[in-house]
Each structure stands twice: as structure tokens, then as C-alpha cells.
């Protein structure tokens, strides 16, 4: 009846990330219609009608005592006790949510129990809101709309160019889009294979591209990967729109990571991304502010300048 078509463990990564990131308090209704224990069920029926709602919490101050639902009212009308006080007939055994819980809890509760609404309490056990399936649907729609808008902007910004003696190609990456992660790097690898470049070189470029790509997918709000190739070098420039790296030295330290548990369970987020990318690059730079991060990895096709100079001497 109140079933939501959202699985809390089997949905696309974007939806999973969303329902774990959003808290109950971001989604719940906070303008509450409440009644007192001494109110009659008739009063509550009038409240329901006036505000078009199907359940009213009974409170004393900020403390939740019980709930009166539309079913309780119908039962009272049937049995003729509609004039009696709320405290006599309200449901006292309540299943409540905490405002700090992730939205996924709210969705599971709506699935598991037959209630149409759940009172939400804060840490001090005060009633702070009500969560209905409508609240969940509205919040998800808003977030999914935002994402769709962003996608459209990014797709229109994608460009591709090719020159006779070089390649320039741009790829968009999206936050938590693990389904498409790896496609830009595969494409870069394919382009290099087509040019019959050395296998070791291709592997270095592929590792750098993939690590920078995964970094954007895992940590940034989204960004782009620019790949250029000319006779001398391959440059991968990873530019994102934020949130930025607070401490670059820390981020460059192997083992340091800010990735979530979920990302770690996939085998990423071990704090090796930037160090790995740097290791395979001939030159490597990171610039970051809260507006975004630019990582540039350069790999020389015929070895580094110093390697070439050494070769010249031989």
C-alpha cells in the first residue's frame, strides 16, 4: 500500500548514495499539526479534515505521547466513542525514527510496517517532524531533477577534437557513477593502442587516467578528464568543480583517504589513487581550492628529458 519502488541495497549507485547521504531531517515535514491528550477524537477528526492529513501526533510540550490515525477515527465513529478523549484510544506503541538516521532507514520502515507515517524524534527525544512516503518521493524527485539538469549541462559541454599529429579528447565524469567509471580510461587506452605505442607506456597512461577518473567519481561533485597527445607527450588533465582537497600533502600520502565505507567495500578509497598516478607520471601537479581541483599528469612518449639527455651522452 505504502510500498516505495526503491530498494535500499539493490538500486543504482546514484540512488544508494542519495538515500544514505540524505538524513531523515532533510526530508521530513517539520510544520506539525499536533493535538493534546485531552482533545476529543472529534477534535482530531476536524484537524485531519482541515489540514488534509491522515494521522495526528498527541503531544505534551515536545514530548510524543501517541498517535491518532484515520483508522482510529473510523473505529471510533463505528463504535460510537468519537467524543472520548484522545489519550484513551491513541496508539501508544509507536515506531519512531531519529532525525539523524539516513533516509534509507525511513524507506525500510515504510516498507516493513504498514504505517503511512512515522514520527521523528531528535536526540533529546523531542518530536521534531513526521515522515510520510510523500516526503520521501518529493525529496528524491528534487535530487534526481538536480542530477538530470547537471547531466544535460555536461553532455552539451562535451567536445571532441582530433588533429593530424595529435589527439585532444574530453570526457565527463559524474559523482558515484561507478557504472560508467573506467570508460574514459578504456577509450584512452584504445586510442594509444591504435597508435601502436609501447605497452609499458600505455599501461602507465591507463593507470594515471583510471586513478584520476576514479578520484573524480569517488570524491568530487563531478568533473572532466582532458586527454591530449602530441609527438612528445601525453597529458591528462583532471578538472573538477569541487569540493577541493583541504590538504594536498596529506592526500598525496599513501594510505590517507577520506572515502566512505561503501566506496571502500568496492575495493577503492585506500588512499593510493594520487600516489599511484604520480608514480606512473613523468611530471605531476595538483592544484586545489574549494571551487575545484586540477590534477595534471604528463607522460613523455620517449622517456623524460633527463633520460633523453643521459641517452645522448651514451
Amino acid at each position, binding site marked *: 500500500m505504502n510500498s516505495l519502488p526503491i530498494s535500499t541495497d539493490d538500486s543504482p549507485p546514484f540512488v544508494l548514495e542519495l538515500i544514505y547521504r540524505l538524513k531523515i531531517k532533510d526530508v521530513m515535514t517539520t510544520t506539525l499539526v499536533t493535538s493534546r491528550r485531552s482533545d476529543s477524537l472529534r477534535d482530531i477528526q476536524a484537524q485531519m479534515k482541515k489540514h488534509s492529513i491522515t494521522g495526528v501526533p498527541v503531544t505534551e510540550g515536545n514530548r510524543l505521547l501517541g498517535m491518532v490515525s484515520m483508522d482510529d477515527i473510523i473505529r471510533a465513529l463505528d463504535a460510537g466513542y468519537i467524543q472520548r478523549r484522545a489519550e484513551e484510544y491513541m496508539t501508544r506503541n509507536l515506531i519512531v525514527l531519529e532525525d539523524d538516521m539516513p533516509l534509507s532507514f525511513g524507506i525500510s520502515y515504510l516498507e516493513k510496517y504498514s504505517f503511512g507515517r512515522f514520527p521523528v524524534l531528535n536526540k533529546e527525544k523531542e518530536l521534531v517532524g513526521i515522515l510520510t512516503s510523500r516526503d520521501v518521493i518529493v525529496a528524491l524527485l528534487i535530487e534526481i531533477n538536480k542530477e538530470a539538469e547537471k547531466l544535460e549541462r555536461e553532455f552539451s559541454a562535451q567536445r571532441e577534437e582530433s588533429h593530424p599529429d595529435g589527439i585532444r579528447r574530453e570526457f565527463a565524469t559524474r559523482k558515484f557513477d*561507478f*557504472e560508467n*567509471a*573506467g570508460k574514459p*580510461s*578504456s577509450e584512452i*587506452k584504445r586510442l594509444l593502442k591504435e597508435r601502436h605505442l609501447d*605497452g*609499458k607506456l600505455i*599501461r602507465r597512461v*591507463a*593507470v594515471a*587516467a*583510471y*586513478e584520476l577518473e576514479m578520484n573524480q567519481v569517488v570524491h568530487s561533485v563531478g568533473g572532466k578528464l582532458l586527454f591530449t597527445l602530441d609527438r612528445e607527450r601525453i597529458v591528462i588533465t583532471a578538472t573538477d568543480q569541487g569540493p577541493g582537497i583541504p590538504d594536498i600533502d596529506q592526500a598525496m600520502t599513501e594510505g590517507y583517504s577520506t572515502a566512505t565505507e561503501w566506496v571502500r567495500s*568496492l*575495493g*577503492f*578509497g*585506500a*588512499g*593510493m*589513487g594520487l*600516489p*599511484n598516478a604520480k*608514480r606512473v607520471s613523468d611530471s605531476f601537479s595538483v592544484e586545489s581550492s574549494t571551487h575545484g581541483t586540477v590534477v595534471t599528469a604528463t607522460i613523455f612518449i620517449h622517456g623524460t628529458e633527463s633520460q633523453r639527455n643521459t641517452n645522448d651522452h651514451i
Partner: protein
Amino acid sequence: MIISELETRLGYRCVQSAYNDAPLAAGYTSDLLSDVMAHAEEGSVLVTIQAHRNAIAVASMTGIAAMVVCNSRPLPDDMMEAARDEHIAVFLTDKNQFTVSGEIYGKISTQ
């Protein structure tokens, strides 16, 4: 040993057979894909329980030729599709990473 011998000699079930059969000189065992990126050798076999399409992407970028998925972990369709596209052999076994690593190591080091 060659890739196909993972099935014929060690009994791991081949679940993705669109690959070029080639000699295996090295292997790497890890569930940490960033670690695999950093250390696995080209043309090696990866022993892991990470069964999802990003594991195939990592294998492809590092040039890993074959993967043995341990503990009979379920293999998602999109992972198998990616493995076919990348010609990476995938084998499945109910044994764990420790046992599989030992078995493969024994075969590679005694050849």
C-alpha cells in the same frame, strides 16, 4: 602454465572464455583494487573476491589477463559483459584466496 590450465589443471570453473590463451608468469592476490593498480604485473592472474565491473576495469588498465573469483562470489551480468569486451578470462571457485594463491603459485613456480 597457461590461462586455460586454471580450469584443466586446477579445476576452477571458467565463466568467461572469450580470451587469448597465454602463459601466466605471475599472479597477484588482493581485494584492494587500488593496490592491484599499483602492483599487479602485465599478463598476470588476479586472485580476488571483488566481483564487479570496476574490478574488470582495473584488470584492463593494468593488463591483467585472467581473474579467479574466490568463495563463489556472485558475478553480476555487467561485469561478465565488460570481461568479454576486454577479453579477460574469468574463473570461479568456492576456494578462498589463500588456497587459490597457493595452488597457482605451486604451478607457476615449478614449471
